[in-house]
């Protein structure tokens, strides 16, 4: 009797708390409430489900509509229509010269398309400004002996958050350390980045991007120069970023066979009959035709 009573009381109190929370959230306005609920969700998938439930329309992270672009007077990309949704692991593939890098740069807004529409969501799933981490294929600064320690460099990924003048907290250092450990480069933290090998440079770039805690990770052939174990480790790492941290990963890769088990979707660039390149979205072996939700 007593236990039943106390259980009832507990339930009652819980209900009251929820009621107050509702009221407070209502008072704060609808948008905040939505984002609060969405942040509370545990995994990406449930987060996305929640987002749809509370009416957040923005599930598209990036959209490209009939985009055309070329460097000289001939277009090298035509009829590109791509949707990237939140919480997807997408690979971009195609033969050499198929404008894969160009596609990424267009998506990121580094290049302006001749025609068509490119849109990148302004906010991430948590309602804050979208954080984008980009790892280009080659970075010129590496060749000129950029004087920087590995740790200093990875820590610069934390600059993306907050004010330019804020003091770096212990949390920032922890994130940088975790990122370096995740790519297996923690022991190299005090080296100059100029001393590292090509594959190692690639990995500290990935670590810097991981330290940013981005909503969207865009990687241009990240596995070039990595041995097989590192490649598999890398795919697992990215997969975990997507499944557990709710991030979206878009990467250019040639090693589709190895990466396939982790991917949600593959965007393939194919040659059109008249010579240009177009874009085909194919499903991965997971069997989802639309982006997996």
């Amino acid at each position: 009797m007593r236990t039943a009573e106390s259980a009832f009381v507990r339930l009652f109190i819980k209900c009251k708390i929820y009621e107050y929370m509702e009221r407070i959230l209502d008072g704060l306005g609808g948008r905040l409430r939505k984002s609060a609920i969405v942040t509370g969700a545990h995994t990406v998938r449930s987060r996305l489900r929640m987002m749809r439930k509370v009416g957040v329309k923005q599930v598209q992270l990036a959209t490209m509509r009939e985009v055309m672009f070329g460097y000289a007077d001939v277009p090298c990309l035509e009829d590109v229509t791509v949707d990237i949704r939140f919480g997807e692991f997408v690979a971009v593939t195609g033969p050499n010269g198929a404008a894969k890098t160009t596609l990424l740069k267009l998506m990121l807004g580094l290049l302006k398309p001749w025609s068509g529409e490119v849109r990148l969501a302004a906010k991430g799933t948590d309602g804050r400004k979208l954080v984008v981490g980009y790892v280009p294929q080659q970075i010129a600064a590496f060749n000129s002996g950029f004087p920087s320690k590995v740790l200093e460099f990875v820590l610069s990924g934390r600059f993306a958050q907050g004010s330019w003048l804020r003091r770096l907290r212990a949390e920032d250092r922890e994130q940088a350390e975790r990122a370096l450990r995740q790519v297996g480069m923690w022991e190299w933290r005090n080296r100059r980045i100029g001393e590292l090998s090509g594959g190692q440079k690639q990995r500290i770039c990935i670590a810097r991007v991981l330290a940013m805690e981005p909503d969207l990770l865009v990687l241009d052939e990240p596995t070039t120069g990595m041995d097989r174990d590192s490649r598999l480790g890398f795919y697992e790492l990215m997969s975990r970023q997507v499944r557990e941290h709710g991030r979206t990963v878009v990467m250019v890769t040639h090693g589709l066979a190895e990466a396939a088990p982790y991917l949600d979707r593959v965007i393939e660039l194919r040659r059109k009959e008249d010579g240009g390149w177009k874009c085909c979205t194919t499903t991965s072996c997971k069997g989802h035709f639309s982006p997996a939700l």
Partner: protein
Amino acid sequence: MEMLHYDFMQRAFFAGALIALIASVLGVYLLLRRQALMADMLSHVSLAGIAAGALLHWNPTATGFAVALAGSVAVEWVRRTYKTYSEISIAIIMIGGLSSAAILMSRSNALNKSFSSYLFGSVVAVNRTELILMAAAAAVGAVFFLLLRRPLYQVTFDEDTAKTAGLPVKWLSMGFSVLTGMIVLAAMPIVGVLLVSSLIVLPASLAIRIAPSFAAAVWIAMTVALGGVFTGLTASYAFSMPPGASIAMTLLLILLAGIGAQKGFVKLGKRIHRTRDRSEKESPARIPRLSNKYSYMQSGGEEK
């Protein structure tokens, strides 16, 4: 220390210190952005401005400054348009600046003497206006580099990734170019047009070679520049040499000595650390497999 009793020497030391500190920091960024020639170019262009100002009986410093600003904006614009041909555009603008300066100069013979002080620098040429301009340029530069040191690090490393990280790369780049123009013009009376880039390039190139980290590179560049300017000015007073040339020569000697010392240390270090290096190379350098707990723990990852 008797030289410090002279008013003009005090001014020269003060101005030299300011410029040394700010120009060397600027140099680190310029070198890493592959714009080492830009300072040279801007100094030649602003010389044309100074000549024009003198000819039109306006304040030459003001016209020089205006032209330097215009030049830095033009360079930024050209750089954006022709990314791969930046050296060519710099050379073209430089030739234009120097030739028009020489032509304007020849129009008024009375100015020839002060022009030689512009070309090679002279402590006597530092007057009150220039000192104020220098202090202002140094102050603006200090604020710029202090407030924007993090964005600048990111932009200097790579513009594309900085842009995707949400930085206003265009504005930062433009601000940086304008600041370069300012500092160059302020430094001209001290080291002269022809040697302005020595203060910007030499300390930075030594610092970039020997510094273990980015922050260290900035500090080393500042120290080297300060040492070079003070030694150079002292030598110029003691042996009555042109100050610009003696400062540049001192900096060059420091650079050579520094590179030599570094090479020596590397050789020494190789002998001592031969054993340690080998063991370090054997440690796992892989991206750990998350599915394979052993491999993950081995690389120092936390238990999951």
